[in-house]
């Protein structure tokens, strides 16, 4: 088991290496640089600017320098926010996005699984049809429609929740509600559909029949026997879901004016703020890769049938 975890962990390194290298060169080949959109400056100043950020060196040297810095945890200075280093910006905005994402994912998991249980136990009854219709809506309606609609209804018409902003604003924790619900909606829908399908499958399994034949209470059968087997697909979905939720938070952050890392990311790619783009990509991919790793480990604990290769 330890060996499996270790090998799985070591396999993260080449992935991260490729991601860093690929995005570094992808960004550099693109036309335009961080200083190309600014006012025309004299040749000498341009040279000095490039020199200051080591951009006058050959590309491979820049790459090695950058790679070394990243290994030491230094993402370098930001090109467009001249007062701040990239590390400052990330440490300011990253917790915001993580908080939003974790809240949304918890909502999605909790309600998704509950709805999945209810509609599978009441298969083809009105509860099932109702819940599954909502789930298809959740999958079909894009985030940037849900967000503004919720704003329109709950903030502008009913005036019960703030239109936009973050929890450090005037309305406090209330500001988290709408963005988190918006962000969680598609994932809630997907988890609900997935858990319903897999619970239905497990309900027909032999060991469930055995459990019932032993005379166990239905609630015990569902909680102890069915759910344990049926929630495996949901667990393995959590890794990609978390990564997706962070991408989705780009839209939610711009809809609700939340100072998260997603907004910085969109800004930095428009400004060609090389270091900031790189930092966000590295962080996002690290989350993605680590989440997949964790899910694999959890999965192998939950499902003894998985061989530890």
């Amino acid at each position, binding site marked *: 088991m330890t060996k499996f975890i270790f090998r799985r962990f070591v396999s993260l390194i080449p992935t991260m290496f490729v991601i860093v290298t690929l995005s570094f060169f992808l960004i550099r080949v693109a036309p335009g640089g961080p200083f190309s959109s600014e006012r025309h400056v004299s040749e000498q100043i341009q040279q000095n600017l490039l020199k200051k950020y080591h951009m006058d060196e050959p590309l491979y040297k820049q790459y090695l320098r950058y790679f070394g810095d990243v290994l030491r945890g230094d993402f370098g200075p930001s090109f467009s926010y001249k007062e701040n280093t990239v590390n400052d910006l990330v440490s300011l905005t990253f917790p915001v996005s993580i908080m939003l994402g974790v809240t949304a994912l918890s909502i999605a998991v909790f309600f998704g699984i509950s709805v999945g249980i209810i509609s599978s136990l009441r298969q083809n009854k009105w509860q099932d049809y109702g819940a599954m219709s909502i789930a298809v809506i959740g999958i*079909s309606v*894009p985030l940037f*429609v849900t967000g503004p609609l919720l704003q*329109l209804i709950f903030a502008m018409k009913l005036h019960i929740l703030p239109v936009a902003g973050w929890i450090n604003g005037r309305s406090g924790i209330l500001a988290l509600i709408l963005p988190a619900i918006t962000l969680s909606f598609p994932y809630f829908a997907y988890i609900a559909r997935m858990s319903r399908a897999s619970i239905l*499958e497990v309900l027909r399994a032999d060991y469930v029949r055995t459990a019932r034949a032993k005379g166990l209470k239905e609630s015990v059968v569902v909680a102890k026997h069915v759910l344990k087997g049926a929630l495996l697909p949901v667990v393995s979905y959590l890794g990609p879901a978390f*990564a997706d939720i962070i991408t989705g938070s780009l839209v939610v952050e711009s809809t609700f004016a939340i100072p998260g890392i997603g907004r910085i*990311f969109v800004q930095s*790619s428009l400004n060609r703020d090389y270091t900031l783009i790189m930092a966000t990509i590295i962080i996002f991919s690290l989350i993605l890769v680590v989440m997949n790793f964790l899910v694999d480990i959890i999965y192998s604990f939950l499902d003894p049938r998985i061989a530890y290769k």
Partner: protein
Amino acid sequence: MANSINKSVNEFNQQVKPVSLWADAWRRLVKNRMALVGLWIVILFGAVALLAPVLPIYDYAHQEIMFQNIPPSLRPAGEVAISQAQKHLDHIQALIKEGRSDLQPDFEKATTDFAALQQMVRESPAANNVYILGTDYLGRDMLARTIYGGRISMLVGLVGTVTAILLGVIYGAIAGYVGGRIDNLMMRFVDIMYGLPYMLIVIILMAMFNREGSSSIVIIFVAIALVSWLTIARVVRGQIISLKNAEFIEAARSMGASATRIVFKYLLPNILGVIIIFTTLAIPSFIMAESFLSYLGLGISAPLASWGTLVADGVQGMELYPWRLLVPALAMTMFLFAMNFLGDGLRDALDPQSKNRA
């Protein structure tokens, strides 16, 4: 068991008509009412999008500055505009009666505006235009814009899917059929690509290469296609591996069929079902991706529109002019809804074993 070549019997020795996979799947699909409704909606949307140039609608880029933000109505635009102005006038008058004498200059201005509007409506031929779904902030017909936006969105969905399928099927088929070290290498590459935050790469591509804005549609196509073939490549590879040692492949090989022929003539037709399911489920996700980019301001540029840009425009004034948000949002949601139902139905129909999978 079979007593003649053409007739087959079931376990009760009754004759049954042999049914092909496709006929069987079609029967199952027709039985699924939601999927059928979805199919009809998709056909309707497709027909409208195809026929848009000959449909009796206004030009999607034509601006009637006089008729900005006209609400949906079956009456001519002139009448609607006048009644809107009348309402505004009455509102100010009522406020003045309540003691808001400071609004007197506003009232005078509104009165002169009203007279000018009546004059313009009398003279302008556009006053007879009927905007069933209203107009946007530049006085463009929302119906036409939604239809033309749908054209772009559907095109993106279609092109993205076709590219993804071509790339993915070829890649997956090669990896699966050749096997061994090459397969290992190719799939490791796919694994690594999976580790990339896909939407972020697309955003970077869009932001970096989209300088002039004229070729933004092409860049969207390339960006989306570049990262979208991975899933289908994996699926096709798995299917090919499970099929390539089957007896009918053995037979083909022993008759001297080349590898290309085996892959394209024998293997691919057998996994067509999987590919079709993937297609119907991929189109909505591409449309979502495009509108996602457009919403962030990285997608289609004006005067062209997609559902995404229309929604993004509509959000700007949604409190006062909700139809500008609701019309494109509803059209888009309906289409995605229909596509999802159709995809689910097709999956149940073509792959009965995976029935009810999420």
